[in-house]
């Protein structure tokens, strides 16, 4: 109710929105604008750019870029609980996480107030990090993780459109990629988890292990009309790590798995599966999907380790250089 009240604090654009320009053709030859998916084998994740220590005013921070996804994480704390807090005492540090899309981060503009999907992402990020942090070392304090998503993969409304033929198409079950929005959020969540771990490491907060995010999707061949090959389609399953939003031509996504993974402990801290997985062979279908997501998380863990190491190296170098200059000053 309160969330729906008009936002009077800012100059808002028209509530109905405006249409962004749609460029139908381009002068580039079509081969250069092929979907990015085609050039990447299904078991390879996209290249990740991860740097820490970008924001100087907070304890720890990181910036992550995976193709179109750009996000920055700030970690504040550990710092004392506010005096007005409802829980004046906490034996373990209280972790809060907040995920916010910048209004311009997706094709459809987002408001300044956090909507339910953003809150949901925040709580899942919390779940994936809370177990990894050694909270018992920081009693009576709080740690805040703030994620701002600057850009995300989102093809907008146009692509998701289902055209209804005159009156009839609506009554026939037609294929549509219903989990698309969730898949997009999943990729964002995985990025948030990886980047947040890097920022926590940068803040010097003790953790049991770094948590890295991984995503995988299982696809099957799309049949024309209602051809259901229920028995045979297990052979044609294609597992894709770090999937792009658009499924490859002729494939339809069945389910997506996003997880936060602690590689050194071989433990999953947060799991989110969305889609349809049969249970004819017990949990085999699910496990295969989870294994793929773990593999994706392991790949991003490499980048995470490098980023953490790089930062440590930078600090060590800096410390050494300052002590050296100090020494020279002293001696000189």
């Amino acid at each position: 109710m309160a969330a729906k009240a008009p936002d009077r604090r800012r100059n808002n654009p028209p509530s109905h929105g405006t249409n962004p320009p749609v460029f139908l053709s381009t002068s580039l030859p079509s081969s250069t604008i092929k979907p990015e998916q085609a050039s990447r084998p299904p078991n390879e994740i996209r290249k990740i750019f991860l740097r820490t220590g970008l924001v100087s005013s907070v304890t720890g921070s990181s910036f992550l870029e995976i193709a179109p996804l750009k996000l920055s994480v700030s970690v504040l704390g550990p710092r004392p609980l506010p005096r007005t807090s409802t829980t004046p005492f906490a034996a373990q540090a209280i972790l809060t996480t907040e995920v916010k899309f910048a209004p311009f981060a997706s094709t459809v503009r987002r408001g300044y107030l956090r909507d339910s999907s953003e809150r949901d992402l925040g709580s899942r990020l919390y779940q994936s990090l809370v177990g990894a942090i050694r909270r018992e070392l920081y009693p009576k304090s709080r740690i805040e993780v703030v994620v701002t998503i600057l850009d995300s993969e989102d093809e907008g409304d146009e692509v998701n459109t289902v055209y209804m033929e005159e009156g009839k198409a609506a009554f026939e079950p037609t294929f549509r990629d219903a989990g698309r929005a969730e898949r997009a959020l999943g990729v964002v969540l995985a990025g948030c988890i990886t980047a947040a771990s890097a920022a926590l490491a940068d803040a010097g907060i003790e953790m049991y292990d770094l948590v890295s995010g991984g995503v995988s999707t299982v696809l099957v061949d799309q049949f024309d009309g209602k051809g259901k090959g229920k028995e045979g389609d297990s052979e044609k399953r294609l597992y894709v790590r770090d999937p792009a939003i658009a499924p490859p031509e002729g494939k339809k996504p069945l389910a997506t798995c996003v997880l936060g993974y602690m590689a050194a402990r071989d433990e999953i801290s947060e799991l989110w599966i969305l889609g349809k997985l049969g249970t004819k062979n017990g949990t085999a279908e699910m496990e295969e999907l989870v294994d793929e997501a773990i593999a994706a998380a392991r790949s991003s863990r490499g980048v995470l380790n490098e980023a953490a190491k790089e930062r440590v190296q930078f600090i060590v170098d800096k410390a050494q250089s300052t002590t050296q200059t100090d020494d020279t000053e002293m001696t000189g």
Partner: protein
Amino acid sequence: MPPPTPLSPPELSYLFTSLSLTPPIRPDLRSASQFRPLIAECSFLPHCNGSSRICMTEAGECIVGIKAEVEKDATSKYATIIEREKWIEVSVEVAGGGASGPGSGVGVGGISGAGGASGRDEGDGGAAVWLKEGLLACGGDGWSILDRLVISKGWHWKLYIDVLLLTPTSHPSPLLLSTAVNMALDSTYLPKLTSPHDVDDIPAFSDDWAISVPLYEPTTFPRPPISLPVVAIGDNVFLDPSVAEVATAEVGLVVTLALSDADGSCDIVGVRGMEVGRAGGKEGDRKGINRKLLRKMVTTCVNEASEVIKTLGETTHKQMFRA
């Protein structure tokens, strides 16, 4: 944050020990995969298209009312997925009718929901998103609940699912929520269209409820989904954990399942992490789920689910026919 418990550290430690024994001893002496008894009623609200009331001893009470309103499509020739997903609106309201005091509607879910969210957010975010997600995912093979909501050219039903929670704890069991929503959906009937499908005039409906159309056909699949909470302590896996068990558990999952055929086999339509207390154990114990445990937890749910869903469905239909 994990659900606050009134239990002291020694109590938690005792619980942890008794739950990690082989075989485990649960505080209410249930077996590991046994559910708590519940009272279920449906279709008792005359103003709603579908309604249900679930009462669980410790977990509290949950009332769901589903209302369908006729709405014009936002666009005339096509409907985008984003637009179509707005056809279903789920809202969860917590009214601390119990000892937790008035209006303590913070952090619903237990489903890794609402947790770390800072500030004064509406606590329902987590649960509402999670309930809707299960509903929409429970399709496959081209079927979607959204197709059932199309009335005629240019018109659709807008489905409002309002969940009212009267719980003593601020973290109600996901089972309570999902059984209530499942039952309400199963008892939802929409008036039969009398005007032609392909005319974009305001649709007209029959007044006769005897020929109304069920939202979910009782004999076809998929059926509405159900979510089972499962937690693990040591190597032991517990279904339908109580508040105390959640507080001690090391890891938790909410597995959403839907019946896929008449033989009673289920499809997994979603898995989510669940917030647990992680109290009572030693520092540096398990912090996440390994693959072996994951298999065990999900298998437990899959094994029990079909019976639970079937029983619930039968109860619903029995009450519907009586009415």
